[in-house]
C-alpha cells in the first residue's frame, strides 16, 4: 500500500501548496498541523526517542504526558528545529522540519521549560526584540509588544527589568514572546512547572483563550490534571515512545470502568449498605472500615447512581458522601507503565535522557 503524505497547511501564510493529481487508487493520508513519524534520537547509548509518532489535527491541543526523562522535551526540541533527530519524519504547519527549518521557525512559537527572557531587559524591550527577530519592522514590533503586554496583564510592569518580575509574570512574558507573530502552531514545554496553584490557574486561562482562537498546540506536562484540563487528546510517553493515545475519557476507560463510592454516616450502616451495593455492583464490594467507605465497580453511570441513592434512602441508611468515581490519569499511568508518574531525580528535564 502506498501512503502519500501531503503536508497540510494550517492557516499558513507562506505554505506553497501545489496539489498534484493523484491516481484514484492511492490512499491519501492528511497529516495534522503537527505530525511526526518514527522520531528517533540517541544521546550516546541512551535512546531518548525510540520512534515517536504524533498527529495533531489543526486547531487542537495535544498533551504530551510523561515523567521526567520520558522524552517529552527531546520531542519538542526535534519538532521546533532545535535538535536534529537521527531518523524519522516531522512536519509542522505543513512544512518539513528537516528540509525547511527556517520556514518552520516563522510558523511556530516556542515557550520552553525556563522562562527564556532577558532579565536585564524590560518586558517591553524583551517583546520588541523578539518581534524584530521575527523580522517585524521596529515600529510594528513596538506596537505588538504594547498589545501583548496589555493582553497578558503586564502593562504596569512593562518598563521594569524582567529581573523584578515574579515567577508567574516571567512565565507570562515568556508566553507572550512566543506569541509575538500569532503563530499557527505553538509548543509549550511544561508551561506551568514551578508555578503556584493560582498562577497555574491564570496561565491555564491564557492557554485556553489562545486555543479557542484556533491555534494548534502541543503541550508537555508532568501534571495529569493539566493534560486532563487543557488537552483534546493525550499521548502518554515513557522511555522515548508513545505508549498510549486518546482522549482523557478513552484513556480512563482503558484502565477499567467506573466505581460507586459511598461514605455512610454510622458505622452500623456499613453492613446493610454493603448489601445494597452488592445488588448493583459488577464485582466485589470493598470496605474501608475506619473511613466508613464502600466501593464497588459498576456500569451504568449517573442513572445507576441515582438508583443506588434511592435504594439506600429507602432503607434509611444515612450517607455523608456518595459519588461516581472514574479513574484518574494517575491510575491510567500506573496501569500503562506499571509505575507511577513520578518525577525522576534528575534535574528538570534538561537532559531528557536519563532513565
Amino acid at each position, binding site marked *: 500500500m502506498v501512503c502519500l503524505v501531503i503536508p497540510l497547511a494550517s492557516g499558513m501564510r507562506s505554505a506553497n501548496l501545489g496539489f498534484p493529481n493523484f491516481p484514484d487508487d492511492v490512499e491519501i493520508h492528511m497529516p495534522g498541523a503537527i505530525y511526526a513519524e518514527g522520531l528517533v534520537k540517541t544521546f550516546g547509548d541512551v535512546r531518548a526517542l525510540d520512534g515517536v509518532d504524533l498527529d495533531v489535527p489543526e486547531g487542537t491541543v495535544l498533551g504530551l504526558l510523561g515523567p521526567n526523562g520520558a522524552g517529552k522535551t527531546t520531542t519538542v526540541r526535534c519538532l*521546533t528545529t532545535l535538535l536534529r533527530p537521527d531518523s524519522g519524519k516531522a512536519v509542522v504547519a505543513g512544512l518539513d522540519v528537516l528540509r525547511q527549518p*527556517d520556514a518552520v521557525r516563522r510558523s511556530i512559537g516556542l515557550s520552553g521549560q525556563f522562562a527564556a527572557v532577558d532579565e536585564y531587559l524590560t518586558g517591553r524591550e524583551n517583546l520588541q526584540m523578539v518581534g524584530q527577530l521575527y523580522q517585524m519592522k521596529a515600529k510594528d514590533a513596538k506596537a505588538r509588544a504594547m498589545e501583548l503586554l496589555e493582553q497578558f496583564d503586564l502593562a504596569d510592569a512593562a518598563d521594569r527589568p524582567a529581573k523584578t518580575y515574579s515567577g508567574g509574570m516571567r512565565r507570562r512574558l515568556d508566553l507572550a514572546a512566543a506569541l509575538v507573530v500569532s503563530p499557527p502552531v505553538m509548543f509549550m514545554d511544561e508551561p506551568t512547572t514551578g508555578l503556584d496553584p493560582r498562577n497555574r490557574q491564570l496561565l491555564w486561562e491564557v492557554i485556553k483563550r489562545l486555543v479557542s482562537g484556533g491555534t494548534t498546540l502541543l503541550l508537555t506536562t508532568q501534571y495529569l490534571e493539566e493534560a486532563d484540563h487543557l488537552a483534546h487528546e493525550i499521548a502518554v510517553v515513557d522511555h522515548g515512545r508513545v505508549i498510549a493515545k486518546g482522549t482523557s475519557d478513552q484513556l480512563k476507560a482503558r484502565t477499567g470502568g467506573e466505581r460507586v463510592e459511598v461514605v455512610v454516616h454510622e458505622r452500623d450502616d456499613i453492613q446493610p449498605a454493603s448489601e445494597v451495593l452488592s445488588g448493583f455492583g459488577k464485582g466485589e464490594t470493598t470496605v474501608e472500615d475506619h473511613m466508613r467507605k464502600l466501593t464497588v465497580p459498576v456500569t451504568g453511570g449517573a442513572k445507576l447512581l441515582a438508583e443506588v441513592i434511592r435504594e439506600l434512602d429507602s432503607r434509611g441508611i444515612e450517607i455523608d458522601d456518595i459519588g461516581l468515581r472514574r479513574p484518574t490519569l494517575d491510575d491510567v499511568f500506573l496501569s500503562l507503565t506499571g509505575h507511577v508518574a513520578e518525577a525522576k531525580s534528575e534535574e528538570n528535564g534538561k537532559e531528557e535522557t536519563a532513565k
Partner: protein
Amino acid sequence: MSAINDSAVIARRNLIRMGRIPEMLIFGLIQPIMFVVLFTYVFGGSIQVGSSTSTQAYREFLMAGIFAQTVTFATAGAGAGIADDMHKGLIDRFRSLPMARGAVLTGRTLADLVQTALTLVVLAVVAVIVGWRTHENAGKVLAGFGLLLLLGYAFSWIGALIGLSVRTPEAATSGGLIWLFPLTFISNAFVDANQMPTFLRHIAEWNPFSATVQACRELFGNLPPGFKAPDAWPMQHPVWASLIWSVLIIAFFRTLAVRKYRSATA
C-alpha cells in the same frame, strides 16, 4: 539584510544590558589599571628594555602591552555572556526564531567591541596620568588603537566558542581567562623578548599577541632607545602580522562558533 538587522538587534540588547550592569565595566577596568600601576611603579625601575633602564622608557614600552592584554580579556566577557544565555534558555529561544544564524554571536561580539573601546579610552587616560606619551602623529596612534580593537574583536570570537562549549557561565569565565596568562606573558608585552631563552623567544616572536604589541609600539613611537626588533618576520612587519593574525583568528573561530551555535544544546 536580515543578518545585519538581526545582529544590530542583538548588539543593542547586549548594550542595554551593559548599561544596566555597570559594575561589569568597572570590574573590567580594575585589573588593567592595577597592572599599569604595578608595572610602572613596582617593576618599572628594574626591567631593562633596549639599552635603556630609564623608568620613562619602560613606562612607554609597557603601555602597548597592557592595552593589548586588556583587549584580549574581552574573551572572558563574550564567553560568560553566551554561556549565560545558553544556561537561561535564551539561545534556545533565539534558535527557534527565523533569524540569521550567526547574528546572536555577531551581535554579542560587536557589543563587546563597544565595551572594549570604552575600556581602552579609560585606560589610555590613566596611562597618560602616570606618564605615558606617544611620539607619532594622531593618525598612527589611532591606527594603533584600531589594531587593538581588531585584536579584541578577534579574541571575543574565541570567547564565543568557549561560551558555547562549556556548561556554566563560571566555567566560561575561567576558561576564557586561564590560557590568556601564558599567552600574554610569553610575549613581548611586559619584557623585551630578546632577553628570553631561545625557546620562549621563538614562541614570543610568533605569538599573535606580540605582533599587535610590537605594531602599537611602532605606531605610538614607544620603542625604547637602542631597541632592535627581532629578526622573525612578524616582528619585522608587525602591522601586517597583527592584521593577518586577527583576520585569521576571526575567520577560524567565527566558523567554528557559528557551526557550534547551530547545534547548541543547553
